[in-house]
């Protein structure tokens, strides 16, 4: 099934003074898609989001929404809404007034606003909280209000700027599921920003990995995970080993490193370190040429001892050739 393209970024460039933040971003986003811009801080993902929202103007390039060029359009005239990182709820307004703000500005009749707000409170499971002030809510509840305040305007694209960043791990996991469910229910296109690769993999239909103002790779989570195009992507998404041989670089996922006498185990390696973290055994090897390889396993391998030696290897299809960008 071919879906419509809802948003297109064409050659977006942006500099702040001497620093180049975005050097030519091209990206097409389909209607109803949950796409995540993934990258470490300073990679340009937030600037990209702000350019889509209209809070920042690109130096060159175009933003095309639903066929129309909106590059120069003011933020209030774009059918796009944002869930801000720090929620940015109006502290002097009740929860209901916060959610109804966008509708009030569009001069929707009062009874309709009230009904819509009530519907939104239900959607984000905050029934009965309408008359509270944002200051009286927990972090997770504020998050839901921020989402409701954006979603109520029925945007064509919803932008979410690290919306779960301030929440603790347990709440984060729960909110990830809720957001995903909400997105399916509404069918709205979500552009989500995070630096957490696990979060990106859990939630997204597609992941766009950004690095130093460049979009390195965009694809489905398993594609990005198993077929990284660059060494940076391989390292950032699921931390793969990068093995350099001659002019080529290969990404080998830690779980694919063999070490139990399989026929592929052809390389001599010294066992440098053995650690147990997060339910996973991690073993750091050093090859003869000095390159280091990490292997990971669930469960314990008795034979391998720190300071010992071992033969390791991998199946040829597990060594994915990547573009080496030095990471």
């Amino acid at each position: 099934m071919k879906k419509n393209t809802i948003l297109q970024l064409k050659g977006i460039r942006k500099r702040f003074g001497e620093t180049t933040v975005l050097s030519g971003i091209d990206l097409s986003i389909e209607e109803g898609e949950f796409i995540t811009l993934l990258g470490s801080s300073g990679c340009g993902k937030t600037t990209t989001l702000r350019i889509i929202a209209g809070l920042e103007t690109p130096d060159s390039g175009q933003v095309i929404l639903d066929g129309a060029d909106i590059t120069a359009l003011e933020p209030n005239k774009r059918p796009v809404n944002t869930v801000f990182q720090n929620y940015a709820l109006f502290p002097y307004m009740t929860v209901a007034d916060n959610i109804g703000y966008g509708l009030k500005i569009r001069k929707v009749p009062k009874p309709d606003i009230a009904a819509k707000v009530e519907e939104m409170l239900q959607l984000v499971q905050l029934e009965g909280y309408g008359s509270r002030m944002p200051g009286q809510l927990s972090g997770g509840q504020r998050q839901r209000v921020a989402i409701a305040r954006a979603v109520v305007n029925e945007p064509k694209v919803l932008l979410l700027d690290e919306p779960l960043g301030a929440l603790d791990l347990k709440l984060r996991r729960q909110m990830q599921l809720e957001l995903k469910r909400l997105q399916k229910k509404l069918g709205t296109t979500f552009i989500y920003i995070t630096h957490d690769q696990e979060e990106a993999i859990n939630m997204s239909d597609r992941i766009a990995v950004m690095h130093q103002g460049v979009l390195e790779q965009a694809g489905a989570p398993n594609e990005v995970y198993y077929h990284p195009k660059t060494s940076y992507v391989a390292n950032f998404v699921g931390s793969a080993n990068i093995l350099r041989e001659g002019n080529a670089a290969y990404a080998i996922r830690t779980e694919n490193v063999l070490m139990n006498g399989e026929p592929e185990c052809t390389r001599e390696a010294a066992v440098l370190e053995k650690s147990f973290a997060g339910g996973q055994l991690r073993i750091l090897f050093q090859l003869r040429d000095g390159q280091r390889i990490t292997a990971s396993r669930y469960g314990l391998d008795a034979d391998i001892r720190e300071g010992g030696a071992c033969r390791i290897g991998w199946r040829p299809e597990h060594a994915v050739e990547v573009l080496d960008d030095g990471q």
Partner: protein
Amino acid sequence: MGNKSSPKTRPPWLLLAPMYAFTILFVALPILYMFLLSFLTRAEVWGVEFQFTLANYKRILEPLYLDTFLESFRLALISTALVALIGYPYGYFMAKMSPAWKKRMLLLIMIPFWTSALIRLYGWIIVFRSNGVLDSLLMGLHITGEPLKLLYTYPAVVVGMVYALLPFMILAVYSSAEKMDWSLVEAARDLGASSRLAFWTVTFKMTLPGLLSGVVLTFIPSMGLFFIADLLGGNKIVLVGSVIQEQLTKGRNQPFAAALSAVLMVLTVLMIRLYRRITGASKLEGLV
């Protein structure tokens, strides 16, 4: 909770005691003394007699004094309004400037405080007097043909008041605009507000506590700044402050001066409360 008995914990009132002592000694007692004084009788030659009377308050109702009160309120209202109109944008834009410019603008406000207020007022006299600095400038530029005779007029007094009170407004607005979270404005824009609407529904609301405290800081002193009216207004504009001062010194009528002060104080408090009720200030305070 459990370590209440530990020897290092002092009772909390001990820590607060100096503050209470100071407030009682220098604020509560003088006010109480003033109110008591206002019900006593003036002695024949010097001081007061301990004889209860309401005559001092009755005297305030005389048209002469009622007019003085009205005049004082009018001048305070005009000055405060002008101070707010000039001070709010100044403080607001200062908060949006780069740190280096903020420092420079702050310095501009602070410099006048290094000189006595009285001396600065004499400066205004030089500016305003016939053929003074302002007249020479305007006539030199051929904007006016003859001296404006601005000194000892109402506008001169208003300028003096605004000049003296402006820094308080600027600093009050600046401190609340400085703390403001600008992502709220972005949120408003994102939700469909034009930049003008975003200003009125977000920025103005968030900086209103600063504007309100600026108004209080301006209005209260402007009720008492009689020396500005005396110096720049001659004897044409008589304010409550001047009458109080006159009654204390030349008139040697301490009880009447106390009664005038008491009424001035009560009226000012009432004005501020009314104003806070109208603007809904209490709802906004403590949020920013």
